[in-house]
């Protein structure tokens, strides 16, 4: 197992390198220059500007710039933001907890909906419950988050004025009031992300369970005289969890990607909005670092999916 994990991580290294090369090249070729502002600023003499550019290595050939970026990265120096001059890792660490909290809460909500509804619907296929659940899941899955997000803002913030629609990191209150404010401003982003993902997973849980209910070993379980609830939990749901857990883990990076949109709508100061503002400002070090964090997430969750799959299915062995 440990062997397998190490080998998988070794395989991940070339992919990370590949990602970084492509990204670096694309960003270098992209129009726009972080020094644009300095160039038009008459207070900065041209020779100072040239000196600055040279000291930052901005005019070096692209492969030299890539290598110096890579060696710095390997030494754990992620560089400074061109815009705020703050170390990139500090910026990311500032933003990451908010994103993780919002995504974590929304995914828990999604699973709390998808698991019971999907299982209940699949054990009564084509019942009224199943049809209603299916329809709602289809609607939820079809509505894009930017649409539902704006809809919720219109309804709960503007019409009813119940919930704030701008997410604030600095809340003056302390103690339980602070928590209350946090919960209030998190409700809508968490609901939008959670309901969307919940709808998608409900459909998946339902079909995974439907695939298992018709298998022979379920009839065997019934022939043993087990109560129906036990047959469902131990011999249907347990087996259906193999593809479900794997898919959930595999989709996590996509969930982070999708959260960027939601973060923009609700102005959640998370890692997604950091990426967007960095892109708009040509802030290369930040873009590189954030994208790298995303690439790392993809690799981590792929590995996690593999490990969980093997843990849930004894037929899989890691060699």
């Amino acid at each position: 197992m440990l062997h397998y994990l190490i080998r998988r991580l070794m395989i991940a290294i070339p992919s990370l390198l590949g990602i970084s090369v492509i990204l670096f090249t694309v960003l270098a070729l992209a129009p726009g220059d972080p020094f644009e502002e300095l160039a038009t600023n008459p207070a900065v003499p041209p020779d100072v500007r040239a000196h600055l550019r040279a000291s930052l290595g901005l005019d070096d050939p692209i492969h030299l710039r890539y290598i110096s970026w890579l060696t710095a990265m390997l030494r754990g120096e992620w560089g400074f933001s061109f815009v705020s001059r703050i170390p990139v890792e500090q910026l990311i660490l500032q933003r990451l907890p908010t994103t993780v909290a919002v995504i974590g809460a929304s995914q828990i909500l999604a699973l709390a909906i998808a698991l019971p509804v999907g299982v209940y619907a699949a054990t009564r296929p084509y019942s009224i419950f199943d049809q209603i659940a299916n329809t709602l899941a289809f609607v939820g899955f079809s509505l894009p988050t930017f649409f539902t997000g704006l809809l919720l803002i219109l309804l709960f913030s503007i019409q009813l004025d119940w919930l704030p629609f701008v997410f604030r990191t600095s809340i003056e209150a302390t103690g339980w009031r602070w928590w209350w404010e946090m919960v209030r401003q998190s409700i809508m982003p968490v609901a939008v992300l959670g309901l969307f993902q919940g709808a998608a997973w409900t459909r998946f849980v339902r079909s995974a369970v439907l695939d298992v209910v018709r298998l022979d070993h379920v009839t065997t379980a019934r022939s043993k005289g087990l109560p129906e609830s036990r047959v469902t939990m131990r011999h249907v749901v347990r087996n259906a969890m193999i593809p479900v857990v794997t898919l959930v883990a595999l989709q996590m990076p996509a969930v982070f990607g999708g959260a960027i949109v939601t973060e923009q709508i609700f102005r959640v100061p998370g890692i997604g909005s950091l990426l967007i503002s960095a892109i708009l400002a040509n802030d290369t070090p930040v873009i590189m670092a954030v994208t790298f964090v995303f690439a790392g997430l993809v690799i981590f969750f792929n590995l996690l999916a593999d490990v969980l799959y093997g843990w849930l299915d004894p037929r899989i062995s890691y060699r």
Partner: protein
Amino acid sequence: MSASTTDPLLSIRDLRVHFATDDGMVRAVDGVSIDVGRGETVCVVGESGCGKTVTAMTVLKLIAMPPGRIAGGQILWQGRDLVPLKSDAMRSIRAKEIAIVFQEPMTSLNPVYTVGEQIAEVVRQQEKLGRRAAMDRAIEMLRLVHIPNAQRRAHDYPHQFSGGMRQRVMIAMALSCNPKLLIADEPTTALDVTIQAQILDLLAEMKERLGMAVMLITHAMGVVAEVAQRVVVMYAGKVVEEAPVRELFANPRHPYTQGLIRSIPRIDLAATHHHRLEAIPGTVPSLLNPPVGCRFAARCRYVTDACRAAEPPLREVAPGHKMACIL
């Protein structure tokens, strides 16, 4: 009814099982009566699609309802009708009184639990034993069905066993609560020929040791000759002939039974001659719209107009020997 069973253990009477499908009503079992006496071995034989599995599953009410439905008849278990029984009461009969072994050992066990766990599960459910005691019983059962290193193998998963070994596990599981009746639905069909004989031997040995009645379902007449005391021949959802095994082989009356017996592979002939099996031409008719009259008419070499006019009833032609043919 055979002479030995005055009060049968299981008495299936005029059972009718229908399936609602998109094309219409499939009459999978259409008025079947089978008795199984205490400690008796009854073979139910017939080609694929004759309703054997549905009959067996219906005894334990394991068919999916819907689309399935018991449209009529009784299933008397020690005199009590199981058809109207609630699911709770039905559960206490499963495995504890009537156990079943299925055709496909490769898919009948849950791949995510060890075989020991799966046997222990039924013991815990039906005998209310604790975890340890149940596992001990599971290991004991695995030993009983001759699984080598039972103590260690109990902690292996199904995929670590061969088909024959898995069928042994299934038999161990089915017998773990000492049922009075074991229904074995083509337990050897999915296995290699050499393994088939071993499983049949095992069933015979278990029967000798534990004394339960056996209802063995098969499509192979050769198997019937080896193990049965009494034989029920099914064709297209109906019983067409029933007799003690010697009587049936000595004096098969129904043309379908005669065809089945002729199709038994004969090792003595196969070795010397170029002996072709005499398979019955044609196939089992659809149970969606079964033909009126004798259902075997389309394949019968003795067919007459009378056969197609009305369904020949099951009648007693000798003591304990019944058949449904006008001849």
